[in-house]
């Protein structure tokens, strides 16, 4: 017989004991632990969901704040840029103006210097030219030239018109002094006689008190009849003075034109 009934009964009891033991030590604790864990996980998930919602709300809030900050930053930047641009423009304008002023001053100084230099040059040149001319003419003026000079002077006297003669005449008679004949060199007797004859033709013989002679080297070459401030002359010095005045007038006109051009 394969079945032993005592063993069957014993095994049934054993099995029931085992069921109780496993219920006590295995299923109950495990099921409880799983249930607790499931509840815990569910609770954590709920918490996580809640935190996520809160975090999202926070994120939205922060994003808005960030956007506002960004906008404010942009505005400030734009303002600063505008300000900087204005300042730059103003400074550039000022610098340009200053440069312009400095340039103007510099140009003015340059012009002044140029003018002064031109003036100095002109003066020096003129003096040199006249000095040379005087020298040359003084060297040339000699006794032979005197006769020619006397002739020219006499012709001058003869060419005096009535009004000029009257003035000369008036002067001669007014102060009562004899007219002075000035020359750079000692006049020869022939020349003196010819001059006296010419003077005599200007005035009646009774009013003429005679003629005085003076040597004046400044005349360079030539003869001068002076009577109380008035004079009739023919001299190289006169020509030179006249030339000098002419040159000065020319230079003045040139300077004026330059200034207008600038």
């Amino acid at each position: 017989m394969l079945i032993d009934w005592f063993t069957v009964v014993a095994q049934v009891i054993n099995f029931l004991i085992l069921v109780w033991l496993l219920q006590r030590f295995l299923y109950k604790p495990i099921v409880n632990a799983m249930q607790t864990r499931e509840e815990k996980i569910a609770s954590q998930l709920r918490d996580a969901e809640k935190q996520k919602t809160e975090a999202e709300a926070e994120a939205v809030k922060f994003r808005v704040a960030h956007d506002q900050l960004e906008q404010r930053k942009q505005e400030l930047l734009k303002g600063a840029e505008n300000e900087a641009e204005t300042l730059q423009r103003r400074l550039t304008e000022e610098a340009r103006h200053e440069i312009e002023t400095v340039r103007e001053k510099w140009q003015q100084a340059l012009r002044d210097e140029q003018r002064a230099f031109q003036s100095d040059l002109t003066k020096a040149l003129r003096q040199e030219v006249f000095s040379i001319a005087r020298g040359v003419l003084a060297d040339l003026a000699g006794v032979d030239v005197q006769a020619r000079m006397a002739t020219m002077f006499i012709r001058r006297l003869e060419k005096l018109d009535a009004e000029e003669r009257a003035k000369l005449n008036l002067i001669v008679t007014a102060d009562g002094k004899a007219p002075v004949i000035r020359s750079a060199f000692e006049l020869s007797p022939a020349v003196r006689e010819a001059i006296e004859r010419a003077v005599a033709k200007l005035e009646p013989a009774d009013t003429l008190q005679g003629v005085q002679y003076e040597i004046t080297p400044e005349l360079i070459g030539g003869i001068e009849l002076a009577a109380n401030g008035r004079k009739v002359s023919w001299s190289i010095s006169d020509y030179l003075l006249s030339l000098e005045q002419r040159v000065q007038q020319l230079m003045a006109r040139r300077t004026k034109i330059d200034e207008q051009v600038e």
Partner: protein
Amino acid sequence: MHLSPDQVVLWQNGVVKLNSTIITTWGLMLILTICSWLITRKLSTSIKISPWQNLLEIIVVSVKQQIQEVGLAEPAKYLTFLGTLFLFIALSNLCTLLPFYEPPTGSLSTTAALAISVFVAVPVFGVLESGVRGYLRTYLEPTWLMLPFNIISELTRTLALAVRLFGNIMSGSMIVAILLTITPLIFPIFMTLLGLLTGMVQAYIFSILATVYIAAATETQKERAGESGASPYQHFN
């Protein structure tokens, strides 16, 4: 050479005796209980758990899933009984790997005891679920003409449960023992492995059939209430 470990009697006093089957069963009970106690002694309820706890949880959850799949809506009620059936048979068969071990499931007394337990558990669960009248009415389904057949079916399936498990395990052990005498090298190892597989399959079949019987006894009420669908019992009988 003996067919059943019942025949190895260690102590006897009249009818009362301690044979290999009972002793081995105690050993298995001890192992199961001590292991369970060791693991569940410090269970973690946090997300981080020990591997052993994880293993136990997998077993428990799998058993519950199996019960649910067969058609019992509340697996927690039946977990203890069906889970213990499976664990005891599985461990008993698994230990065939050990030398000089004779599985208690290779004894017809043990398988008969388990089958009797199922035979009793089915009406108990049925009555608990549907009441005495409700349960008894299941014997008259689908017509009263089926009453004798239903009663015969109830008895024969219990017998079948006991003999199926016994036959498979006993034959496995016998084949290995015989092969050891004929070809002592290598070949018995494969047969042992095959026996192991058979043992696991038998543990599964035994407990799933018990579940199906219980499900058939408790589902009848719902079927009468008009729910369509074939009874799981019809698939497995």
